[in-house]
């Protein structure tokens, strides 16, 4: 039973990081219907920025964590400004392809920094002894990760429910022309969506870097696993992203906890999300909480 609960706890830990990563993706989709394939790269950028600030600029990690969120906020905003703004009004498919180009560009830029092909690890700043509760283990780093995730999710949900920005975002995603006609600045909304996406990505990157260390491949792979999560959640739903993140975390933990190593199975945890993805696509394409398209002819 302890084993089971341990899996649940680990699932939630992993899942909440997925959720945090997914939120940024959802924000962009919500406002512009764009699937941002370069989200993994934003996460990587956030992780590397946090690392640079901490290790090279000797800023205490909690400050550099926040600073990195701010920097990535502006980074993502300028990405939108430079590359995506020109595409307002173009078919969504082009914009999605631009994010594919962005993937490569950000990769290239990261390669130009000294980190491109390095394995790095954050200096540990929390006690390395785990917390043990009834035989269930959780490390301080993970706990901090979960807490930060939920804090950020809370702040964002509040922000989007309360402010008109949230409503404007939904309006813009619905009909750009009509939004312009009532004076919503569509570029501003997009800029804001990207910027906040950058902010959450940086947070996810920072936490991720602390948990598994900085390795370009791992960060990349993480960027891809976000897709099954957001599809499960329903692409444009923030609560969906959170629920789906945690569900996916649990699925993976249970897979590696109960499937792997038995019956000759192995690596199911990394495969299952994509199978889940396919199943969801087939049977519940709008995910758990996604908006159904209103289609009247």
């Amino acid at each position, binding site marked *: 039973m302890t084993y089971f609960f341990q899996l649940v706890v*680990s699932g939630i830990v992993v899942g909440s990081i997925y959720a945090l990563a997914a939120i940024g993706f959802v924000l962009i989709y919500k406002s512009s219907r764009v699937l941002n394939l370069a989200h993994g790269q934003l996460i990587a950028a956030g992780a590397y920025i946090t690392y640079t600030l901490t290790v090279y600029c000797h800023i205490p990690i909690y400050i550099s964590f926040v600073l990195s969120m701010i920097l990535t906020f502006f980074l993502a905003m300028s990405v939108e400004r430079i590359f995506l703004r020109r595409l307002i009004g173009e078919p969504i498919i082009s914009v999605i392809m631009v994010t594919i180009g962005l993937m490569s560009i950000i990769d290239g830029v990261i390669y130009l920094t000294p980190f491109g092909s390095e*394995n790095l690890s954050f200096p540990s700043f929390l006690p390395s002894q785990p917390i043990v509760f009834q035989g269930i283990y959780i490390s301080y780093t993970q706990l901090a990760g979960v807490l930060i995730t939920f804090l950020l999710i809370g702040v964002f949900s509040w922000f989007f429910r309360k402010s008109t920005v949230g409503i404007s975002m939904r309006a813009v995603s619905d009909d750009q022309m009509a939004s312009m006609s009532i004076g919503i600045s569509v570029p501003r909304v997009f800029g804001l969506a990207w910027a906040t996406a950058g902010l959450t990505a940086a947070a996810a990157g920072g936490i991720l870097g602390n948990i598994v260390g900085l390795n370009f491949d791992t960060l990349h792979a993480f960027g891809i696993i976000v897709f099954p999560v957001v599809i499960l959640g329903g692409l444009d739903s923030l609560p969906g992203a959170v629920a789906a993140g945690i569900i996916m975390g649990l699925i993976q*933990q249970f897979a590696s*906890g109960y499937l792997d190593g038995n019956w000759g199975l192995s690596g199911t945890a*990394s495969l299952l999300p994509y199978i889940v993805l396919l199943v969801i696509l087939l049977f519940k394409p709008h995910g758990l909480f996604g908006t159904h398209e209103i289609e009247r002819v």
Partner: protein
Amino acid sequence: GEVYKTALSLAITGPTSDAGNPYSKGAEDYFRYVNDMNLLGDDTIECTIRDDKYETAITKRNFEEFLDMGIVFYLNYSTGSTLALKRDFDEVKMPTLPASFHAGNIEGSDYIFLPIASYSAQNIGLAEYVVDHHEGGTPKVAMYVHPSAFGREPVKDIEKAIEAGLDIELVETVEHGQDLDVTAMIQRWRSKGVEYVISQTVQSPVATMLKGAGNLGQVAESFGEEGKMTFLGAHYTGGNDLIALAGDAAENFYWTTSYIVTSEPGAGAEAQLELAQRYGRDEKTSNSHNYANGIMVAQVTTEVIRRAKARGNEINKENLYQELLEMNGMNAFYPVTTVGPVTYSKDDHQGVDTLQLYVVRDGAFRAEGKPFISEYAEKIK
């Protein structure tokens, strides 16, 4: 003087570039050193280094270009491309040293030579070490491997070794994904009574595993500590990168390779650091075992050219190939960067057969025991 053309194609960017990068610098620096110090008289070696981003198609293109250039010796990199180009190497009779120590590379090939003992030999060597140092009963071992041929091949060979009498119990083999949390796996191992974990993969998953195990308080503080797990790994799992990634969690990790490390003082370490310093390499590159790896293949290349020259033979691929085949017995080559001699012959395509075990103590790899040679690796052939 003459210019001898050689070439190296490897992943400087893309997957595994963390290894490929210092590797390329090692080779580059050593060839430069040869030319600068006139080690071949007024002849020089021109080694073209190309990035292939770990893509076989690009490796192939690079290789064809190298052939057009008229290279006489070739250095390759990944398991994938070495296997893919195996037939080409044989057809054009090109002596080749890859960075991959995959045992399958040299199967059915006359021209591919592994620089050091194969992954299989390394892993079996680790298992033998476990058997020799474990107290009481049959040690329970789990294997943690890369989800590819690179990771799987040694598992098969360990199984063969067990059949041949190696006294370990292989409890389970895990092919890792890109996991963020390994708690479940570690807990499962604990419940199955696993005492040793042998890894055959690259550093970052190992680092994640070690951190996870550390968090759960499962890492043995000394070899074979009762009720905990001792972690071991082969060449590409270790080195300073592992310490960089895993931090404190890397403590007491056992690692084997045939290369010297700079954290253990010695002639090899000095030579390596000196070379790095001469060409202005940073701290990290200088101390990388992959840098040593790159130097070593360049040394072998230089050595065969030197020997062929000394014999008064023309420097071409056939003659260099012959030199490789004769590099044994009295003619064994002792590069300072390895823990044993490089020996090749018609039916021995593994260079340095000797392995050295290292263990992390206070954030650095320290030699543990004397260099050894895996017995079972020979037995199962």
